[in-house]
């Protein structure tokens, strides 16, 4: 009798056609990495609010993540070699494997079936089934692997810091096919794929320059450019490696961080000639285009990392200098550019700015936040 009453009550209170209160769409969700505590904050972009914290992800210094095509799952790449699959709906870890001693990033294949991780120790790339996190392929390398990107056709490209070698791996068949594309140069520190998957660009630390591979070509060859910048004056110490994942491609140009210089370098995409140099507040770390606009936003290496500058890609002039907070580590734009979210590590906050007024709209508490990742990344090649 008692159970009958309970059942009746359940049926009355939760009719099938009205169960929508508990449903969550993921299109405006995102994850913020809390780098010191091994946790993630799940945020709702529309509500400008934190909705959950997910813990137990290990060492998240330099962590990044990518999303499944349905924007339900995140694959988190931790420094300690941990690959963790997080369910945004259940708000919990659903799979985790410590797949190497030390890793630096990862990518998901264009069909969403494979997740690849780039490892420092032991060096190389490991590829996993996106559903189960079972190992699919293990491609060792002679050094630390950087700049891993997804390339259309179930492929990935990556580069080796120690040797400069650039590889393209094709995982569309029964057996992986790995091709050595060529040598980028001395100590490549990061690489990025243009949003049209045309050009794989590799930034060099050990020498001046950037090396490009045309991935639309059947036999891509290395083309080096920007080898001449900063010929006058001393280079400054680089207190944080620039990151290229957000390299801005705008107004027919690449906007690139100079290494060891407080400069932004503008390169014509077609001719690869240097178009302009913009003097900046500090050593650029991220240079990210504000979507649907002529502007790029730039943050800086320590100790000048309390500042963010906005540059107009037409005039190459700094049009705004903001001091949003202490240790601004990352910037993530709403997919259509209305807002930018900034992580202020030493203020323990994520700051939300209107990109048009450049005024603060709100903030969210987070423990030493670093990377911010909105689910819209699921649909972007090269992220």
């Amino acid at each position: 009798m008692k159970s009958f009453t309970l059942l009746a009550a359940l049926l009355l209170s939760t009719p099938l056609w009205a169960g929508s209160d508990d449903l969550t769409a993921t299109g405006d969700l995102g994850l913020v990495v809390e780098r010191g505590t091994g946790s993630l904050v799940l945020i709702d972009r529309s509500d400008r609010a934190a909705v959950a914290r997910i813990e137990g992800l290990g060492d998240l210094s330099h962590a990044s993540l990518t999303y499944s095509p349905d924007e339900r799952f995140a694959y988190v790449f931790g420094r300690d070699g941990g690959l963790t699959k997080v369910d945004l709906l259940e708000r919990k870890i659903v799979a985790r494997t410590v797949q190497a001693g030390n890793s630096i990033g990862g990518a998901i294949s264009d069909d969403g079936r494979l997740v690849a991780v780039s490892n420092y120790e032991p060096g190389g790339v490991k590829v996993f089934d996106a559903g189960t996190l079972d190992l699919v392929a293990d491609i060792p390398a002679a050094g630390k692997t950087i700049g891993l990107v997804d390339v259309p056709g179930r492929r990935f490209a990556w580069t080796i810091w120690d040797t400069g070698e650039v590889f393209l791996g094709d995982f569309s068949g029964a057996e992986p096919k790995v091709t050595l594309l060529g040598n980028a140069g001395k100590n490549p520190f990061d690489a990025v794929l243009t949003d049209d998957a045309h050009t794989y660009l590799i930034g060099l630390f050990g020498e001046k320059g950037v090396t490009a591979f045309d991935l639309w070509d059947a036999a891509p060859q290395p083309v080096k450019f920007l080898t001449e910048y900063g010929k006058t004056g001393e280079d400054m110490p680089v207190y944080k490696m620039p990151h290229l994942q957000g390299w801005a491609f705008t107004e027919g140009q690449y906007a690139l961080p100079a290494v060891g210089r407080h400069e932004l370098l503008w390169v014509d995409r077609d001719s690869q000639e240097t178009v302009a140099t913009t003097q900046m507040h500090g050593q650029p770390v991220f240079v990210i285009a504000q979507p649907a606009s002529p502007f790029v936003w730039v943050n800086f290496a320590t100790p000048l990392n309390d500042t963010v500058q906005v540059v107009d890609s037409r005039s190459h002039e700094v049009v705004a200098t903001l001091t949003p907070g202490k240790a601004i580590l990352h910037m993530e734009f709403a997919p259509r550019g209305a807002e930018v979210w900034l992580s202020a590590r030493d203020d323990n906050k994520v700051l939300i700015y209107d990109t048009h007024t450049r005024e603060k709209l709100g903030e969210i508490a987070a423990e030493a936040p670093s990377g911010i990742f909105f689910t819209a990344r699921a649909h972007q090649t090269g992220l």
Partner: protein
Amino acid sequence: MRSLAALLLLGVPAFAEIPPERAAELQHIVQQDCGSCHGLTRKGGLGRPLTPEALAEAEVEGLAAIILDGVPGTAMPPWRPLLTEAEALWIATHLKLE
């Protein structure tokens, strides 16, 4: 107490020169900024591991020199523009201890 004894054994003279507030800042720099390359847990990354085990054979003065002047030809920058010699010694000692 154990740490103090260890410090005395290491024979580092400059400790009194670092006020507690600055020591807290240095600790923060080690975790966050050194951690960018060497890992938050100092198990290594682009840079070498900096755990006490990894540094067991290293001399405090030698480590401090690397912190101040960097390692040419690598990604290790000179921190002399941002740190005093006493602060570099403090960091080197701290790295070897914990």
